[in-house]
């Protein structure tokens, strides 16, 4: 931003994005970032291809959200629509996990694993491959239009679009059978939705990773706004040791650093930063904690025979300790890390327990509301119910349905019992819901009250497990 011209005339209400040309850098954190990138992209592109045998009638994709079939498959776990709370649990785990990791190591999520970071990093790598490193790219953008420039730009955008397309396509694969999609997609046999969403995700990837980049982190993402609340002075964050670096200034090889700071003002830390931050100004919201500036400065320091980590991945408390010459100490166990970890463990344990104990059969009884009851010709009162048995296992099952709690009650399930029976045997196909009309009748004088609790008990014929549901039997 040009401050002097701003003083002369009121600046526009709107500012153009300043171009950022991150410079190539090598070092520990860069290697870590590459490793994270390869692992995460590998998972993202590869996961839909994992197979999982669930028998002949179920899809054999390990990870699948089957929207039309209303099922989600996660390896051996099969989720029905009413069980989406497992997804909620997963989101809570994600949120608390994010809090914990932030309390320990600052914005590691932002700097290393956030999809925006990962894809932007990948796009920048392609950019560097085609257009060259920072000076070459700056020169290219300044250069007048030419065939060579057009060729490079086309190649870059072509490559970006190709990656975006693969990214968008891979997302669709989580929602449908991957090999089938692959086959149908290129012969034009997929549904308009598939093409539409692929186009949409291709476009968003292209725009967000190709153009929006750090603007997503600075302007669009809500996380930087409150992540500061998860830090404390013991969280590991990227900081500049200004007590050691200042006063800064240009330096020659072999010169003495007596009476001056260690920062040689080479500007490399700023040039490598993917969000254009000058970390020497202190903590800033735009810093995503990628630690590339640490790598950059660490490549400079040895040339001057200076100790490394002038910019460092360390806690504020340690910084203060170092400044005073005390031994720094990383404190992992702090109230907030303990609380976050405890919540994490509790939620994870609750989810694991719920999953382990979860029953793959559900019985619902819905009483008719109109009429509440009817009088029959022989004087009996009769109530109608709809009984739904959810058989979430893949095997066909049979349930023995009986009622209790209403004296003299008999039940009738048209099509499955004789007129008045003491129980009904109801078949429910695997992976489906059996819906039955159930009529229960008794003599009103035996009822003894206007309404009584009635208990439906469905017994799994094979396992013998009983599912009970209480409802109301109404009388005159």
């Amino acid at each position, binding site marked *: 931003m040009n401050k002097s011209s701003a003083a002369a005339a009121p600046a526009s209400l709107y500012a153009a994005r300043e171009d950022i040309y991150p410079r190539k850098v090598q070092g520990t954190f860069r290697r870590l970032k590459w490793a994270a990138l390869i692992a995460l992209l590998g998972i993202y592109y590869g996961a839909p291809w994992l197979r999982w045998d669930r028998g002949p009638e179920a899809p054999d994709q390990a990870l699948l959200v089957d929207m039309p079939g209303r099922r989600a498959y996660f390896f051996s776990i099969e989720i029905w629509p009413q069980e989406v709370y497992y997804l909620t649990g997963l989101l809570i785990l994600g949120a608390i996990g994010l809090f914990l990791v932030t309390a320990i190591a600052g914005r590691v999520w932002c700097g290393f694993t956030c999809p925006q970071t990962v894809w932007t990093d990948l796009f920048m790598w392609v950019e560097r491959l085609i257009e060259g490193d920072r000076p070459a790219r700056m020169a290219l953008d300044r250069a007048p239009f030419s065939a060579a420039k057009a060729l490079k730009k086309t190649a870059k955008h072509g490559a970006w679009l190709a990656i975006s397309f693969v990214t968008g396509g891979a997302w669709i694969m989580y929602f449908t059978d991957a090999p089938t999609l692959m086959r149908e997609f290129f012969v034009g046999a997929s549904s308009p939705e598939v093409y539409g969403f692929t186009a949409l995700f291709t476009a968003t990837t292209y725009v967000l990773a190709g153009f929006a980049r750090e603007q997503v982190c600075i302007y669009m993402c809500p996380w930087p706004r409150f992540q500061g609340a998860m830090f404390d002075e013991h969280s590991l964050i990227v900081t500049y040791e200004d007590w050691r670096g200042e006063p800064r200034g240009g330096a020659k090889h072999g010169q003495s650093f007596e009476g001056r700071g260690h920062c040689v003002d080479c500007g490399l830390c700023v040039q490598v930063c993917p969000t254009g931050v000058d970390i020497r100004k202190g903590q800033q919201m735009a810093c995503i904690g990628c630690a590339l500036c640490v790598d950059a400065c660490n490549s400079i320091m040895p040339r001057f025979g200076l100790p490394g980590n002038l910019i460092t991945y360390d806690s504020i408390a340690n910084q203060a300790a170092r400044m005073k010459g005390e031994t720094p100490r990383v404190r992992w166990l702090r109230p907030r890390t303990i609380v976050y970890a405890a919540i994490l463990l509790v939620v994870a344990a609750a989810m694991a327990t719920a999953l382990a104990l979860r029953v793959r059969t559900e019985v619902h009884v819905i009483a008719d509301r109109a*009429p509440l009851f009817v009088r029959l*010709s022989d004087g009996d009162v009769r109530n109608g119910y709809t009984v739904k048995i959810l058989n979430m296992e893949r095997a066909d099952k049979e349930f023995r349905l009986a009622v209790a709690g209403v004296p003299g009650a008999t039940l009738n399930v048209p099509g499955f019992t004789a007129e008045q029976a003491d129980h009904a045997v109801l078949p429910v196909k695997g992976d489906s819901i059996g819906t039955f009309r159930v009529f229960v009748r008794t003599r009103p004088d035996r009822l003894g009250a206007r309404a009584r609790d009635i208990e439906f008990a469905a017994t799994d014929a094979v396992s013998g497990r009983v599912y009970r549901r209480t409802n109301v039997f109404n009388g005159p």
Partner: protein
Amino acid sequence: MANVDKDTVTGTETTGHEWDGIKELNNPLPRWWLYVFYATIVWSIGYWVVYPSWPTFSTYAKGVLGYSSRAELEKDIAAARKAQEAQRAKIAAAGIADIVKDQDLLVFATAGGKAIFAENCQPCHGPGGAGRPGGYPVLADDDWIWGGSPEDILTSIRVGIRSGHKDARASEMPRFGDALKAAEIAAIADHLLAFAGQKPKSEAGAKLFAEQCVACHGEDAKGNKDLGAPNLADGIWLYGGTREAIVAQIANPRLGMMPAWESRLDPVALKMVAAYVYALGGGK
């Protein structure tokens, strides 16, 4: 804005707005953000042209795409009809007795029948066939004046009751108020309540019942479905079960009426609604 005010701490200029000594810094929006805003304006103009959005005096501007949600709905309905064709053809071909025995067909027929019932029958017979006092019978019980077999129900719906249809179900209850004395009618009423187990037997009533009522309602007062004579022994009373109501019905009978639905519903719909009514729990 000749003199630009700068914030002393940050060096950022202010917008010149000040509240209680607090000044607003001028931190510009990114320009692309602004362009996105302009783009939405352009988009909205395109939208006005492409989709119907402007009212005119008597109608509305149709938009160059000619889109209308009603046309979309009609398309969807046509598609749904088409998807149902196979099942509807099966219902058209099958007899009502076969439909209620075939689980798949029954599920389809009752689902459709439920909607038809709600639209056409519910105003009188109540939701779920709960009936309404004053001559609208409960369809969820097992008391069927004209018979509760699937065929009987279908016929009743098709031709109606005293509907003017040539095959309409019709029964005539004489006006005993003209022929009998009030005391005699009261005796018959008492006798009927005795049949239903609601009163002790009455000698006089029994004699009068044998003379006047047996021909239609039978010796045991169980009624006759072929004649449409209701069962008087089951404690279920179409026009009310109090003594006064029964006396009134004998003296000056009210005779209910139901339209013939043959002229309003197609044969498949008739079968579907009959199947639904049968599944409500009737069917004697």
